[in-house]
């Protein structure tokens, strides 16, 4: 009975109706994920600053707009604030030798207080689309999607260009092989500072867009943002590799990161549409990200000769007497 009631309560139309909103919000988070991609994939730096800098972006955008500044000026200042946040994490790491994760957490915690101060010690500040001319709002979803797409497209083009330049290439090299980078005369500390700054500027930009979209900034709006960003990056990569395979290049990766954000929010839409308990949403997100992060590792492990040799040894031990040990050792040596 429950099931019949349950399924009859689900309205397929309601799901399709929810799509535009999910896409718009997914685009905004996809832009945020571009920032996460820069640190997590290119710089190999798990940067937890983003939870704080996302809210900073929202706070600066809302407060400046409310104080009468043009929305574009406000958004630009939000980017600069995010840039400074990233720079702060970078300095903690490169100049003071604090490990990446800890450096990010420290800045994130500091930003909580800073964000409250930016918002005149309010945890939440409204930004009404009726009072201010905003760039986008959930009021008009079509335009929100178009503008979200424009922002994403421009960012992807700029990032594609930048990471193709001498400096951008140096940042990529730093993330992949710091020893080689130093040997090639790259100041890897500076590259980390630049990468973190760009990343957090983008994250703050996305925070500023989301604040306009939802009509308020909240000091907690970035909480768990790193996980959403990672989810978008990873979903995008898995999907992109599945669809494009070998043709997946840097451009493709950036595009699929944004698509990953959209898919993430469509899944959220499905979860809400199914009336699942939203209290468990974060748990599901964490599980999805953990699984997708684990897949490449487990794949690699099952292919490694250790695993194979181990299996063979186990099979031999089961089949024969203990004298088979010598045999196994010989085989292992061959393998090497």
């Amino acid at each position: 009975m429950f099931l019949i009631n349950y399924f009859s309560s689900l309205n397929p139309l309601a799901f399709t109706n929810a799509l535009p909103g999910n896409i718009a919000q997914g685009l905004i988070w996809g832009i945020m994920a571009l920032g996460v991609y820069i640190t997590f994939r290119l710089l190999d730096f798990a940067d937890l600053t983003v939870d704080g800098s996302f809210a900073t972006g929202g706070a600066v955008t809302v407060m400046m707009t409310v104080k009468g500044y043009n929305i574009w000026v406000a958004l630009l200042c939000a980017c600069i604030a995010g840039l400074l946040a990233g720079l702060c994490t970078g300095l903690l790491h490169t100049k003071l030798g604090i490990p990446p994760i800890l450096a990010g957490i420290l800045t994130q915690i500091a930003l909580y207080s800073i964000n409250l101060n930016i918002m005149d010690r309010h945890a939440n500040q409204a930004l009404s689309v009726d009072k201010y001319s905003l760039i986008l709002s959930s009021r008009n979803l079509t335009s929100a999607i178009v503008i979200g797409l424009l922002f994403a497209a421009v960012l992807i083009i700029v990032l594609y260009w930048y990471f193709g330049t001498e400096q951008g290439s140096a940042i990529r090299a730093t993330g992949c092989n710091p020893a080689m980078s130093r040997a090639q005369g790259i100041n890897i500390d500076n590259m980390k500072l630049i990468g973190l700054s760009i990343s957090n500027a983008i994250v703050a930009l996305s925070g500023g867009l989301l604040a306009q979209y939802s009509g308020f900034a909240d000091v907690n709006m970035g909480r768990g943002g790193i996980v959403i960003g990672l989810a978008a990056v990873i979903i995008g990569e898995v999907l992109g590799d599945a669809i494009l395979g070998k043709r997946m290049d840097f451009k493709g990766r950036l595009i699929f990161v944004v698509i990953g954000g959209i898919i993430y929010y469509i899944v959220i839409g499905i979860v809400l549409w199914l009336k699942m308990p939203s209290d468990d949403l974060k748990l599901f997100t964490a599980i999805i990200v953990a699984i997708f992060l684990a897949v490449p590792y487990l794949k690699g492990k099952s292919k490694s000769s250790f695993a194979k040799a181990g299996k063979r040894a186990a099979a031999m031990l089961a089949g024969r007497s203990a004298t088979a040990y010598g045999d196994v050792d010989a085989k292992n040596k061959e393998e090497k």
Partner: protein
Amino acid sequence: MLEIRNVHKTFNLGTINEKHALNGVNLKLDEGDFVTVIGGNGAGKSTMLNAVAGTWPVDDGAILIDGVDVTGLPEFKRASFLGRVFQDPMTGTTATMQIDENLALAARRGQKRGLRWGITKAEKEHFHELLKELDLGLEDRMTSKVGLLSGGQRQAVTLLMASLQKPKVLLLDEHTAALDPKTASKVLALTDKIITENHLTAMMVTHNMRDAIAHGNRLIMMNNGKVILNISGEEKKRLTVEDLLLKFEEVSGEEFASDKALLG
């Protein structure tokens, strides 16, 4: 070209693992010198190279490259004087970047990296020619990720990278040790070719005495963080492995304890 003056380095000072890795190393290389460096495990061969490269600051002494005192310069700043190839083929190249991108990075060693495009068309053509000379078929795979190459191919690319901007000194740190014998000899031949063609000053650490004798115009032997033997010119040409073993015992008072060096 390179001068190492009384350099000292101690690791883990004050702990149970304290090690005096360099104990007053003195060495002078003239322009065009190709020195091979041998010695037992822990003799300080790689440590000396790292001291020159600036991986960490030295405790005492001075290092001069082409008359410039670089003792206080960090690793990335010294890089403009140095070309380096490492023991681990993974270290010298960036796996997730293309072959041509790696070369382009190396071509800008010691230069300011700005917002110009990371690789020019002219460079691509130049790299194509250079890769063709390696005769490994890499010229047709310029946009492949370096991570897909074999260890030998990666060392070849690294050698090429080290010589793109002519270095004052080329540092080769057991760069064939991780390769199979056949690939190793190919890479060594390539090393000789690059050094000769570009008239480079080079220092090559090796475990293999035969290689040490066969290559270069000078040979030094290290023990306990010191240079204990310095052979050059005609004397080096007449050297045999047996000579070296005898000399080692003579100078150090102990037996040369490396099977690998004997067998190699």
